[in-house]
């Protein structure tokens, strides 16, 4: 951005300008390199999934663009405060006016440079959103940016005051508080809520999607490292919002398949008492705000009462488990 600074309208200006530019360039290069190589690899959310890796890369790219901007302004401000204070010698010399043509040039180049940077950021952000299938963010009920594969494991995430439960439709739709996801598999989290708005934040996986009542919010992720990750509720949902956290695990596909099938059997009796699997559930007139309404009011809803609309789920079977 050095070009945006005024060029010498009068003797001596170019000297100040050169000092500022030198400090700026040196600090920016040192700062950017230090950040990229020292801090960059450790920037949250880490590298546990394809999406997390993308988020880390994007953050680092934004940072190395932002740092020189910040350093430019700070260097200039610092320089101004020291060099152009009224108490300096010769401060009373005739005012230095930037000639109108120079001023105009500065203004147009400032506008041009900021515009180019902004359009570039927009292009970069859009690419990085679309390429990793929505970058781990909630994409609503009908995502248009999807992973490029047929075998996607759906896991339903149900937010409720004040815990998360998960249903595995590919395994008979059992419901549990345990979150297990297989490594190297495309996963679709279908996030919904039984009462108020929550937000499913699988921190190390780089996944975040609001859990809205009556809405199916899909977020894709492809875990790439084994281990534990944190799940926190990230949208204020009332009294115990602060305590609404738990952990999930990325496990090997075979281990996952084993866990899922045994849990399916173990919970079989339980699953029968659950409402049939559906993408959204309406908890009836006794939900979050339900009790506000007299019980004789017939609830109207696009999805009917808790679980009555069943959904066909493409089976996630042995083929994925072998991958």
């Amino acid at each position: 951005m050095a070009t945006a600074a005024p060029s010498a309208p009068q003797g001596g200006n170019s000297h100040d300008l050169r000092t500022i530019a030198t400090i700026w360039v040196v600090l920016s290069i040192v700062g950017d390199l230090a950040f990229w190589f020292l801090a960059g690899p450790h920037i949250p959310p880490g590298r546990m999934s394809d999406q997390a890796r993308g988020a880390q890369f994007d953050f680092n790219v934004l940072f190395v663009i932002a740092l020189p901007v910040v350093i430019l302004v700070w260097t200039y401000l610092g320089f101004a405060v020291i060099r152009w204070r009224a108490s300096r010698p010769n401060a009373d010399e005739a005012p230095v006016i930037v000639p109108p043509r120079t001023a105009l040039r500065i203004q147009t180049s400032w506008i041009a440079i900021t515009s180019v940077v902004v359009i570039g950021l927009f292009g970069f952000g859009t690419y990085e959103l679309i390429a990793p299938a929505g970058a781990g963010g909630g994409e609503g009920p009908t995502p248009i940016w999807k992973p490029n594969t047929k075998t996607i494991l759906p896991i339903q995430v149900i937010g409720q005051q004040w815990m998360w439960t998960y249903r595995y439709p590919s395994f008979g739709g059992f419901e549990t508080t345990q979150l297990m996801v297989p490594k190297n598999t495309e996963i679709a989290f279908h996030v919904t809520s039984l009462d108020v708005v929550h937000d499913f934040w699988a921190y190390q996986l780089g996944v975040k999607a609001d859990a809205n009542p009556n809405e199916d919010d899909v977020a894709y992720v492809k875990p790439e490292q084994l281990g534990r990750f944190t799940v926190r509720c990230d949208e204020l949902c009332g009294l115990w919002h602060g305590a609404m956290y738990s952990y999930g695990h990325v496990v090997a596909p075979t281990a996952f398949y084993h866990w899922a099938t045994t849990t399916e059997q173990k919970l079989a009796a339980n699953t029968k008492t659950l409402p049939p699997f559906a993408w959204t559930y309406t908890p009836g007139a006794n939900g979050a705000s339900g009790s506000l309404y007299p019980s004789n009011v017939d609830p109207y809803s696009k999805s009917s009462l808790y679980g009555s609309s069943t959904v066909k789920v493409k089976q996630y079977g042995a083929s994925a488990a072998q991958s």
Partner: protein
Amino acid sequence: MASTITTPVEGSTGAPPPAQRMRNRPAWASQHLGTALIGAVGGYAFGHWIGNVIAAGYTVPQSNGQNDVAVVLGLSLGALGYLIGIGAFNYPIAKMFGREPLPEVAEEGWQRFFRFNLDHKVVGMQYVIVSLLFLFTGGLLAMAIRTELLNPTNHIFGAGTYIAVVGEHGTIMMMMASSVVIGPLGNWLVPLMIGSRRMAFPRVEATSVWLFSAGYLVILTALPLGGFPTGWTGYAPLQNQSTAGMDSYLVGFAIIGMGMILAGLNLGATIINYRAPGMTWGRVPIFVWSVLATTALLVFATPTLVVAGLFGVLDRTALTAFYVNEHGGSSFLWENLFWFFGHPEVYIMALPGFGIVGEILPVFSRRPLFAYKVGAAGMLGVALLSFFVWQHHLFQSGINPDMRPLFMLTTELISIPTGFIFLVGLGTLWKARIRFEPPMLFALAVYFNFLIGGVTGVFLSDVPVNVTVHGSFFVLAHFHYTIMGGLIFAFFGGLYYWLPKMTGKTLNRKLAIWHFWIMFIFFNLTFFPMFIIGLLGQPRRVFEYATRLQGLNDFSSVSAYILGSSFLIFAFNFVWSIYIDPKRAESNPWGSRGLEWQVPTPVPHYNFERLPVVVADPYRYDEPDQGVADFGTFGDPALSPGAAPGERVPHGHVQSSDDSGDFDPRPPII
């Protein structure tokens, strides 16, 4: 030219007509804060009673114990009673019955600050007081939040109390911030800066400050009513689920919103129509441009908030289902309406701060404002664009996911006009002669802080990065850097700069500089760690966090205590220098060329003896011989119905409906 300017308003002569002077209000009938509070209590009791009568058959929702109909009616009628008690409706009601209203007396002395006063300078000072009340209340609550966050697992508050405190802090601060510059400084300064002797709608203006203070009382009632669990964003359906404290939030925001709309209408109309002759758009001070851009936001964005709040109130009382999914409504509706207001709101809170900084920089660097036109265009551009970005708060919500690239683009586009404001500042400092008086320190700090706030905003606008930082302490740090680091720093800069004019007293410079350094250093030490805390995974509004984050949180908390105490230095300075040991301020202590500094201190009742004729913009620090305006007699004195040349408009002068301008105040068509 003279005749266009000085056409007398019909029926107004220099001295008030004797008949009106005779009908001054007797002392016992005078209305003031006391009668307003009586009206508020009476209105609340009446509304509560009515509500319990008409909604007697309703099931009391949840374990609430309160009938929401009664609470809502109580709060609304309480606010109405407050306005009646202060006398806001005397004039229109008398007119309605065809009677000549009793004129309000424009009085001197401290009592006028507790009355319904039509002088914009009194209204401005009233706004100062109420804003500081808001700020200190919100600040105390912030200390409570930071105290709870000292330890990740041991709790001082219960879970419910903690979110009530967070919500109350956020709401109070947002209410304050949406008026904190527009109200005090906007009302006080705009007529002086544009060379007007009055506001366009003094009654509307006076009503706005009383609505502002009514909103303060209403939002305070949330605490005894049990608080509200939604934070300042009030998301439904949690909103519908909450107990009666939520009613205070909804009614309070509606009242504050109406005050904002009225303030915006009046200021916008004044700036457009009441500029002095010669005060062309190319000479309007940059602060006035910022206020003008803000008034557009106030007038066009705030009604959404009021209506959204009304929907919420109806959901909670009349069992409508605007926001209730299982009854055909949508929780997305609230999110959309709230943020459609909420994003312009953040620029309502940012732009006036930029305006203040733009006024302060040239004065203390003795340089003309650089790129004035680009700066003004930037403010208008920010105001316009801010209506098209609101869904960046909803990137992960599942609403319109395919539109996210568009909202990413609009959001990032805003950084272009925002950048203009940096260009203005940096260009003005070029080879300047900088004097480090307290206002200048605060102005420079605004650039320092807002840069961090703005740059982190670009991170937030990037959807992939937003996945990690949305809803975390990173966001919290970001908006504290913009609002507190930008607006509140600018506000204090503005106070140190203009209070000598507003009060006629000099504030202690040493204390001001102490205040600045402590506030600046500990502001950064409090909030910078929060970026890291957020990146490391701490969500907002939680009272339990990972134990590994305790160190950073404690560091932030301790810094916050010191930050909080810096406000006490200001409070002490304010009280000491203005009331206890007052020292007279010169009428233009900073050597400013602004029109507002060219009038005597205290500023005469109608600001200028005559409408000044403006001959130059106020930033010509490079041309010491260039005048600012002609304040002397102009035109034919015989045509002028106002005070004779050199004569002050008498104090204790009666203001009546048509005796407020003396001149046709519109600028001539040049």
